[in-house]
């Protein structure tokens, strides 16, 4: 009971802090937080597949990109469309793509799944470059209108955009967290650990994989859509490129696969490192590579795992039994 109340207090403090964040820290850091939130939702969508179902996808960027392109196209071509329906259309595009792909991809797993997505992701990237009548080719779609809920345009008011983005991304995060607590979420963990056993228990493994796959695409679409609105630009390299597929994987690995809040921590660390590096050197690739190598070799459970072992060490040292043994 006590712990629950403490949790509520922490949540309230966190929400108040986020609510007054733009007033306290100014536009620059507000935008940093929006970027972090977008990538947090995106990484959580990857972790939904990777951590909870054990499916590693090298092509999550296609859902991210479809979300962005869907929203941008809707805002460009449908006059007077509101911002929420536009986001909805983008998410719908991502979900539609996932539905089309799901019968094919749920039959494979492991390396084949990863490579299949690498290929499909590449296909979407090439198509986005080639179909320049629709996608604008290499330039992408830029300068589309960004209407607000209450105002004409959000372009000149990043503060309003912050609130809109944070509410949408916050709800997405909460939904994903809620999902892991449902029986359905537990079945996903079961599939990751032992697909055959879940099959014998009477659950349909390919079908539940398909559902999680589509859900993951949905949230990647949300992130991509907000990302497109945030930059007012959707381009093949910025939203669909192979780098965009790997960024969330890196965040998930840094934070810790499988733990729900790990990816969020990973995004925070990754974004901070990225910010700092860009001040000194151009080559983020090198740093990302080194981070990946170090994480895999020395802390395979990520920072979340590192914290967990540290906490265990500290808490065991405090117990009298441990002291007795030492003495």
């Amino acid at each position, binding site marked *: 009971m006590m712990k629950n109340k403490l949790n509520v207090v922490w949540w309230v403090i966190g929400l108040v802090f986020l609510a007054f964040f733009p007033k306290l820290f100014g536009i620059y850091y507000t935008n940093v937080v929006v970027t972090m939130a977008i990538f947090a939702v995106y990484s959580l969508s990857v972790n939904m597949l990777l951590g909870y179902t054990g499916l590693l996808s090298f092509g999550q960027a296609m859902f991210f990109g479809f979300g962005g392109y869907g929203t941008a196209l809707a805002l460009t071509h449908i006059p007077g469309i509101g911002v929420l329906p536009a986001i909805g259309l983008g998410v719908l595009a991502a979900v539609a793509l996932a539905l089309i792909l799901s019968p094919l991809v749920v039959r*494979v797993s492991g*390396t*084949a799944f990863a*490579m299949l997505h*690498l290929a499909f992701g590449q296909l979407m990237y*090439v198509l986005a470059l080639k179909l320049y009548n629709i996608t604008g080719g290499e330039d992408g779609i830029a300068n589309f209108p960004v209407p607000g809920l209450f105002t004409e345009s959000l372009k000149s008011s990043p503060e309003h955009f912050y609130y809109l983005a944070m509410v949408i991304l916050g709800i997405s995060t909460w939904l994903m967290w809620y999902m892991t607590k449902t029986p359905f979420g537990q079945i996903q963990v079961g599939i990751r650990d032992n697909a055959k056993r879940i099959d014998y228990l009477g659950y349909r493994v390919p079908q539940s994989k398909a559902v999680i796959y589509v859900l993951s695409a949905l949230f990647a679409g949300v992130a991509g859509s907000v990302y497109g609105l945030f930059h007012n630009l959707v381009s093949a390299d910025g939203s669909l490129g192979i780098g965009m597929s790997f960024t969330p994987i890196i965040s998930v690995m840094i934070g810790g696969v499988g733990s729900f809040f790990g990816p969020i921590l990973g995004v925070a660390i990754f974004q901070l490192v990225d910010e700092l590096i860009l001040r000194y050197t151009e080559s983020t*690739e090198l740093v990302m590579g080194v981070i990946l190598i170090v*994480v895999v070799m020395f802390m*395979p459970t990520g920072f979340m795992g590192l914290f967990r072992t540290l906490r265990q060490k500290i808490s065991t040292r405090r117990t009298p039994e441990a002291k007795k043994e030492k003495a």
Partner: protein
Amino acid sequence: MDPMVSMYISQGIHGIAYGMILFLIASGLNIIFGMMGILNMAHTAFFMLAAYFCYVVVGITGNFWLGLLFAPLFTAVLGVVMERVFLRKAVGHMGELILTMGISFVIVAAIKKIWGTESLPLQMPEVLSGMVNIVGVTYPVYRLFVIGLALVILVFMLLLLYRTRLGKIVRAAVSDRDMVNALGININLVFMFVFGVGTWMAGLAGVAIAPILTVFPGLADQVGMDAFIVVVTGGFGSLLGAFIVSIIFGLLSSYGVQFVSQFAPVLMVVFMAIVLAFRPNGLFGVKE
């Protein structure tokens, strides 16, 4: 001969030459995967690195043949070092995939740092730079040389795998590595050797393609992605599958460029999607 027909034939040989290069990369990936269960994401980075090594060797000695000899060897040594130092430490498939991905990032970044991002031209040797006339079709000698080189490597690989004791051990390790280990064979040494041969083949492909496409940092993405698609479509661990699919893809890409130039890269992925829809483990893949 009718110019149209001769053009089709020369496009066909073009396709086969490209397919052969794909095969060199894909078979290296394939034997590593077949034996160690590791999908080496850094494979294409090694492939590109060999092209740069060759550029350096040719720059120093002025001799392409020395480049062809030494660049793949350097690459293989680096591959072995990577396997010994890093890959042994990785845990599970996920760890291996991500670790090799990280290494490929580092290699690409290092290449950009050392040699810059522009295309570096590589002169092919005098002997191979001419054109040859075969039954009325004039054709660049170099591409025929590439086809020949790949065929020689294929024969060499088959002999090594099916006619030597080492090949027997490798094949046994593909089907059950623990058992081979238990029989008193130093499996780690065999792994190291296989990894070296795999990266050596990637290096050879890198050197072979360098005079055609020039040397630039996008090489790994451009050709490497095709090689990965070949392995997935042909079936993991199947040399025959890699060979057949490489040639199909080579032809698809050369005729694709001719007829539907905009969408040539799409053709391969569509082909792969169709194959995987019916055979999830690839054309010649065995069930996991």
